[in-house]
């Protein structure tokens, strides 16, 4: 199976003169996973804001905001189907940017990626750094949240709250004890976070889903905000060491 991704850019007016850029991705790895659940550093298999469901698109679509600190650097988008039947790594080179850039990422019309790939049964994580195996730093990779095949209209979890979804590959866990901090520390705010084991028998490449309630003013913040997500696995009565990820949001996709 061959996957091609490109980021289409359309210059947009307003919202701090934020633009949308277009990048062509380079496929660095595309394979069928081995359907095993060994906990690897790349525990975060998908990260997206839940959006209003889109009419069935002809092609999968991905949108995000590229932070300033990623200017001129390589980023890697990892696509994983929940069943583990499909995975792909697509590398992008972010151009020099003078400001945060809005990006609309979408698969090319000719992509043979299965049309059944949806936000429910697949995940995409976009991480700073080249696509070299599972290169997530277990003590704190840096991700951007994205919309995966959905419109840029967050699903509300209550007044002023958007729903951030993390699809995770966790082995040896009876439960996850997870927290999310706005601004990277408890001082700025602790966000409501809940994690559940997926009961779908096909949930092999990722088997836990965490939901974070993110204030929409943080999502819309033109200056961008940072979340720190951290968790411990609790297995047979004992907690594991803490793992965490830095999640960059903002500019209100």
């Amino acid at each position: 199976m061959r996957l091609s991704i490109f980021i289409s850019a359309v210059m947009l007016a307003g919202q701090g003169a934020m633009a949308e850029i277009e990048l062509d991705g380079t496929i660095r790895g595309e394979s069928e996973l081995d359907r095993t659940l060994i906990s690897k550093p790349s525990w975060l298999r998908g990260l997206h804001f839940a959006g209003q469901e889109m009419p069935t698109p002809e092609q999968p679509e991905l949108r995000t905001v590229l932070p300033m600190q990623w200017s001129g650097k390589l980023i890697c988008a990892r696509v994983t189907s929940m069943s583990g039947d499909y995975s792909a790594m697509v590398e992008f080179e972010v151009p020099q940017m003078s400001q945060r850039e809005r990006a609309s990422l979408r698969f090319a019309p000719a992509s043979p990626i299965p049309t059944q790939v949806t936000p429910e049964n697949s995940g995409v994580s976009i991480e700073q750094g080249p696509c070299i195996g599972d290169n997530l730093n277990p003590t704190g990779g840096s991700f951007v949240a994205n919309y995966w095949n959905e419109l840029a209209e967050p699903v509300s979890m209550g007044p002023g709250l958007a729903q951030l979804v993390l699809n995770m590959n966790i082995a040896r866990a009876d439960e996850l004890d997870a927290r999310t901090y706005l601004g990277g520390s408890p001082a700025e705010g602790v966000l409501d976070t809940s994690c559940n084991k997926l009961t779908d028998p096909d949930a092999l490449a990722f088997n836990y889903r965490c939901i974070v309630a993110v204030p929409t003013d943080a999502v819309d913040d033109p200056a961008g905000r940072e979340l720190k997500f951290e968790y411990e696995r609790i297995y047979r009565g004992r907690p594991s060491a803490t793992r965490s990820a830095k999640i960059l949001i903002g500019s209100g996709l």
Partner: protein
Amino acid sequence: MRIFGVLLLIAMVIYYVPDRQQSFTVTATTEVLTIDPVSDGVTEWEVPRIEACIRTDAPKRELKVQGCAMGLYEGVIEDDYPTLRWTEGYRLTFRAYTADMIEVLVEHNPDALPAPDNAPNEQRRGEMKIPVVTLGDRVLTPDSLLYIPYRVAGERTVLPLRGYVSIGDVPDASDSLLLLDGRYEIKQNLGLRRDRSHLVGEGRLFPGDRISFALGDRPWFVPGDAARPKEGPGRTNALARVFVTDLVAGGEGFDLVATTEPAYANLLLTRVGGQPTLIPVPWTERLLGDGVPVAIATLLGLIATMIALSNAYFAPPKAAVRIARFDGDRDAS
């Protein structure tokens, strides 16, 4: 006679080819068993001793129980035949713990129906009121752990349950808990005595196998829903009765026997490196497993033999006549 034989063969094929209800018995030594208990009321266990780690972020008292982390669990030790009361809506995972103790993880089943409004002992998960499991007069919260000794003062502990089971687990990590050894039998109701089941398949389970009982489709010619077993909403598994115990003191893992109720179901086997597979029962196995066709075949064979013998002894020796004529002709020439 030939027509009768052909008709009999066709009748047997028509009778034995379609799938039918079957039940399974699995006996295994395993390190892990998962069961979603089902009962018409409340299931009770009364065991000599239970140690419990009740999940709570704010323990009222700190009592170290087994390896449970202080601060996450409230430790409880009950050693005077405490009663454990189950209701539906929970998933229990039995795991080998030490040579003399089993561990049970008590999880709320996210697919379960909420508890009725008038259910006692308020317990909520999010917005939903969930049914309550109790140990004595304590409510067990979801994600609690129980530690039950296999034997107390020489008395063996037996834990019976009824529900939807999954035996063993496919290795997915370096310290996976596994099914160690086991075997299965498949029985079906065949022949004229429909109340008696016949063995139509059996086999051995390998270490690392995972076994469950998957409901199949009812054949088109079987009327009504009565043929389907009682099942929960959205269920695709067949109900089983199971008991857990430790047959050999000090051995690895624990032992269980699980038997399903007759249903249009299949044994679902997941083996490392392979896709989940339904173990088939060929119609020829049904034929071989049924005594009636064997008896009919034997009877027909006897009849045919008797006819052949009677022909040999009482019918005119035509072959001998032909030989005599041939010899006569040769002599004449």
